[in-house]
């Protein structure tokens, strides 16, 4: 399981018995010929259909970890296995989302959604998936926005378009780098519930980086707490709340208990660093 100071209890939740899709063994990253340690060796298993979050102070190597998992940056040591095959570069099974929507202003919303297909399989394939892209836009409440250019979209609408762009390739694994942190709280809650619905309906495995403890607790089966630089996993907190999660759960006492516990662990990490 995990290399961590605290032994992690075997998972007891039914969902967690599913096979591991993502496996990281001894993955670390350092820069400047080993002089700067960004990420200490990490072991991680993500089980199919699970939702995991990573929470930790800024600069603890969360984004580096995500880039390594996505096959965009090679690790300094260790290996990443996705679906039984090592990750050696970009993989089709992976869908990513970032804090910024990163839509291209010269493409319409629909063409932005179709961009991954256009890049991977060419124009004809993208044309063939037009209907699907329209359906996705409709799914996130952007029906009729096909021909609209990104400058006419609000922040939340742009981020929803970028969800569609991630989903058009039907990824098994979603890597999410603070996807909704630029949105206001209402939009953020709404998007989080949407995200859960999408993950559950597709049995997708999700890995979320966030700064918000309540967000992590609301969405996740497991919350990983990271220490400041060089980043390493301090603890894996299993969130034993029923699915699907609702916003009302956020007012429940157990929810507050999880938030308080993670908060205290983060504070300890910050002090000992």
């Amino acid at each position, binding site marked *: 399981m995990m290399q961590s100071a605290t032994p992690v209890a075997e998972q007891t939740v039914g969902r967690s018995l599913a096979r591991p899709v993502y496996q990281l063994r001894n993955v670390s990253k350092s820069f400047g010929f080993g002089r700067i340690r960004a990420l200490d060796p990490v072991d991680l298993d993500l089980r199919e259909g699970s939702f995991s979050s990573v929470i930790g102070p800024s600069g603890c190597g969360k984004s580096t970890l995500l*880039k390594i998992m*996505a*096959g*965009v940056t090679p690790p300094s040591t260790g290996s990443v296995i996705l679906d039984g095959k090592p990750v050696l*570069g*970009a*993989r*089709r099974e*992976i869908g*990513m989302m*970032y804090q*910024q929507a*990163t839509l*291209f*202003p*010269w493409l319409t919303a629909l063409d932005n959604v179709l*961009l*991954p297909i*256009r*890049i*991977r399989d060419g124009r004809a394939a993208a044309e063939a998936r037009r209907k699907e892209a329209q359906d996705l836009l409709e799914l996130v409440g952007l029906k009729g926005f096909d021909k609209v*250019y*990104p*400058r006419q979209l609000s922040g939340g609408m742009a981020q929803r378009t970028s969800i569609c762009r991630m989903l058009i390739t039907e990824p098994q694994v979603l890597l999410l780098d603070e996807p909704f942190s630029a949105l206001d709280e209402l939009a953020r809650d709404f998007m989080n519930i949407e995200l859960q619905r999408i993950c559950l309906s597709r049995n997708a495995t999700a890995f979320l980086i966030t700064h918000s403890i309540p967000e992590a607790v609301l969405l996740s089966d497991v919350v990983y707490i990271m220490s400041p630089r060089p980043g390493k996993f301090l603890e894996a907190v299993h969130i034993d709340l029923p699915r699907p999660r609702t916003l009302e759960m956020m007012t429940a006492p157990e929810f507050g208990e999880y938030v308080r516990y993670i908060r205290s662990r983060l504070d300890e990490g910050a002090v000992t660093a």
Partner: protein
Amino acid sequence: MRSFDAETAPRVLGRPVTVEAGTFPETVWSEQVAWIDRIPRVVAMAGLLFAVLVVWWAVHHFEVASRIILPSPAEVGRDIVFVGKNILTGGYMLSALWTTTKEVLWGFFFAVAIGFSLGVLVGETSFGERAVLPYLVAIDTMPKVAFAPLFLAWLGFGIASKVALAAFIATFPIVVGTAAGLHAADENARMLFRTLGASRWQTLFRMKIPTGLPQIFTGLKIGAVGVMAGAITAEFLGGGKGFGELIRVAASQLQTPRVFSLILYLSVLGFLVFWTVVVLERKLVFWHRASVTGIDDRR
């Protein structure tokens, strides 16, 4: 009646007003529109032109400067009509204008082709950035007009030497614009393309070049202005059959009205080249704001 001090007094169109006690004025504070913003743009432009002409006429009339050096607006106007007739009736001035036009267009063509290619080399490849860029910067700091005698010696007194200098001057801003444009894409966009497994070619044409188009067009607009300067300078120094030669001859004969009117027609040519680039920019970079004058005012 109540009196108010200047700070807190209710205002109408920016001016303080007195308000009857117990009554409520309809407008107490509203925005003021400056007089210059109330008149149409065309009227403002025409007014300024008229003012300049009046000053010019006065300087001529009271002989502040020698009349040989500064002709009257009327003389220049008559000469503009004369040159215009010559051009429209296919006289020798039309062929001179055509010669200069050819130089400018060929010069711009070569500047765009070479400038864009070098820009991609410098902006996209490590070799270009590390090995080629320092030389380009070094050459760019030289006064490029000083190369004119070399081009004349190498390419002769025909159109080729003028095209060469025009292209030489216009190439550098296009290189710089293209290279800067290719660096304009942010880290997120690069990450996205990497996660999509995009090839270098796809990344260049689907992301980096479109992202950099505003900068590339800034380079093209500076180049479009430089290409005229290059062609005319080469004609001044190397003769030939173009408009630059006509200006040089007119000036040497102290035909100052002719010099003015020839410059006016040249500026029409320059404006057309520049405007073509601006129109193309509006078409291609429709998502980006470019002002009416074509001057870059982004952000």
